[in-house]
């Protein structure tokens, strides 16, 4: 069955550095991957979508890559800020338009 894996260990970095989060998928070839941000007590908020024929997509300080050979997507936040501290979820489409999520990676940016 479709499976999305994210590093469950929290990522702790210094303000100003680049945060890199990893999403790996197995057992299928997704047409796209989505990245969401989730703050405590809130629902996920959509950030970026990257399709299988796109190698990279950018939005302000965010960059997502999609490597179909490695079956991996990387999510980068450049010039990180304490306000970027949150849990970041990777997701892909399952049957009937539902999303299949990874377990999320918690990012902590220290001032």
């Amino acid at each position: 069955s479709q499976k999305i894996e994210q590093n469950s260990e929290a990522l702790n970095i210094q303000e100003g550095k680049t945060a890199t989060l990893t999403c790996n998928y197995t057992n299928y070839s997704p047409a796209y991957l989505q990245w969401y941000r989730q703050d405590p007590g809130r629902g996920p908020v959509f950030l970026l979508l990257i399709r299988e024929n796109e190698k990279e997509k950018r939005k302000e300080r965010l960059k997502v890559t999609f490597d179909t050979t490695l079956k991996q997507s990387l999510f980068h936040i450049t010039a990180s800020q304490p306000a970027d501290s949150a849990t970041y979820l990777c997701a892909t489409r399952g049957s009937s338009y539902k999303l299949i999520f990874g377990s999320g990676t918690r990012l902590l940016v220290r001032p």
Partner: protein
Amino acid sequence: GAGVSQSPRYKVAKRGQDVALRCDPISGHVSLFWYQQALGQGPEFLTYFQNEAQLDKSGLPSDRFFAERPEGSVSTLKIQRTQQEDSAVYLCASSLRRETGETQYFGPGTRLLVL
């Protein structure tokens, strides 16, 4: 503009009690999804509506879980005879159309605690 709203935000139930969770999607959104999120995990799909039709309920964990969207807007997720393992955050999401890759907009969730 108004986003997806859910009520109640918090619900404490005694084991065996029935609960009803409400979702108000963004006006005009065709698709509506329910997800269950356990602590430290990503959301897991429960069920999907396209307008008033429930097209996929494969994620509902047991026949104690029931969802409806009778007029194609507001949806209710009902859990009968709640069990402790039902404790989780229940998220509702809506999207404008039913196309592949459509962004889903999530509500804040209802945190259910079953004692």
